[in-house]
């Protein structure tokens, strides 16, 4: 058995659309250690969600190989958690029932855990509320609690904090780091926020669009807890930003050499 829990090799994903073929991913190679925190960053449409769905087992129409604990991914499973880009709550269920999902709230330990996670995402008092009564950020926190409750080995997060205000967002980042450190969950975290990527990730994967591929991988060798104001943090942030700028203007970059 290798030390890497997730091995992605030469993965391509081509969508057939009425307008023709769209290559969403091309030649993706990524190896993730068990318990590693990976952040993925890249411009809109570069295939981040597509990659996450392949790892989740929701999308199996890809070329290449994806191994989780040495086994090819054949479909969704309970050890792979997913937080979608949108909350995706069941509109006919209250907050607590949404979090419990197919687990029964009549079980004492399920109820206790649901209450615990409601407190963690700071939604006390909204247990009996329906999704239509929640703000976008509150709904997303319910979705986060729902995924965390199941304590998966691998957690796939697709811009989970995009709809949150700055205060709630930094609180949720702390919560996520806590859970990661306590449970050694392997994290694959998509974001479009550079600060967030550097603050959370042990490695930042920078992606490029058309076709979606990995531009570079930047290790962030800073101990946790990290301080955004420290000079080493700022240095690494600038480094990633430079990589990111190359992504945004590839033509400009090659032109500069002449």
């Amino acid at each position, binding site marked *: 058995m290798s030390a890497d829990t997730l091995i992605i090799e030469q993965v391509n994903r081509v969508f057939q659309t009425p307008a023709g073929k769209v290559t969403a991913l091309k030649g993706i190679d990524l190896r993730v250690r068990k318990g590693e925190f990976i952040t993925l960053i890249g411009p809109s449409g570069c295939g981040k969600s597509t990659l996450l769905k392949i790892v989740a087992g*929701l999308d199996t129409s890809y070329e290449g190989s994806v191994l989780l604990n040495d086994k090819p991914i054949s479909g*969704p499973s309970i050890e792979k*958690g997913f937080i979608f880009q949108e909350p*995706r709550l*069941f*509109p006919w*269920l209250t907050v607590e029932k949404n979090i419990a999902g*197919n687990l029964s709230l009549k079980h004492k330990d399920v109820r206790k855990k649901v209450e615990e996670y409601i407190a963690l995402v700071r939604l006390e008092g909204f247990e009996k509320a329906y*999704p239509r009564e929640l703000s976008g950020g509150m709904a997303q926190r319910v979705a986060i609690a729902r995924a965390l409750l199941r304590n998966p080995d691998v957690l796939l997060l697709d811009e989970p904090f995009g709809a949150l205000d700055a205060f709630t967002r930094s609180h949720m980042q702390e919560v996520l780091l806590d859970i990661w450190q306590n449970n050694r969950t392997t994290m694959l975290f998509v974001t479009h926020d550079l600060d967030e990527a550097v603050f959370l990730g042990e490695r930042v994967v920078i992606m490029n669009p058309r076709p979606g591929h990995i531009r570079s991988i930047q290790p962030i060798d800073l101990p946790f807890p990290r301080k955004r104001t420290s000079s080493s943090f700022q240095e690494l942030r600038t480094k990633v930003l430079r990589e990111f700028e190359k992504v945004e203007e590839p033509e400009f970059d090659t032109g500069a050499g002449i």
Partner: protein
Amino acid sequence: MKNQQTAIRRTAEQGWLSFIPWSLHAWLVPVAIAALWQMAGGLGWISQALLPTPLMIAKQFVHLGVSGELWGHFEVSILRAFSGFILGSLTGLALGMSTGLGSMAERTLDPSIQMLRTVPLLSLIPLFILWFGIGEFSKILMISLGAFFPVYVNTFLGIRSVDAKLYEVSRIFQYSKLQLLTRLILPSALPNILLGIRLSLGVSWLVLVVAEMMGTSAGIGYMIQDARAYSQTDIVFVGIIIFAMIGKLSDSSVRLLETRLLSWRETYKG
């Protein structure tokens, strides 16, 4: 000057209306019409043989009720409509669910059902009488056929409009086949299913009346038909009022069920 006058009149009007409780406002127009109708009948403006006055209809209502005749017809009609409705809507639910859930069933069953649906139901009545006679069985079968299609079509539609994004969530959390059905598909399809049931109730009533006018010896429809033969217009009115009341009652009970079960919905309320 003129504007001022209309303004005064308007407040006067509202002042007059405010003496009557809100809940009774819907009754103002019917009561006014009934009063006018009664007056016109009483003064001999309209023939009472064609249009009996509200008082005469009410008297006949009480008379039929006390003699027990009304209840006999009522029972027969209710039993017919209800058994036809239950038979038809349950079949519609079962078949709608199987074609909705399985593409196999959809390919093989749905085209035939859709073809049958385009046949006007009432044109089948002579065939039903030829095959099954004019007995109870024939009537209930006719009603259930009418009740079948609205539930079938709407159940199918409801199942096919389940949000694919929520389906992905249920896959991530590894819902079992049964959980998928009871916790995602049925709740999503419920608004459509209830709509189908409401439409189906309406059709059941319609077919009931037609079936009862074709030839029977009991039922509200028969009572109407019989009274027409003897020009007892007031009894015809009693029958019509009963149909209207039951129709409204059954529709309201499904609506109540809707507001109870679908309170989670966020919709435009006018």
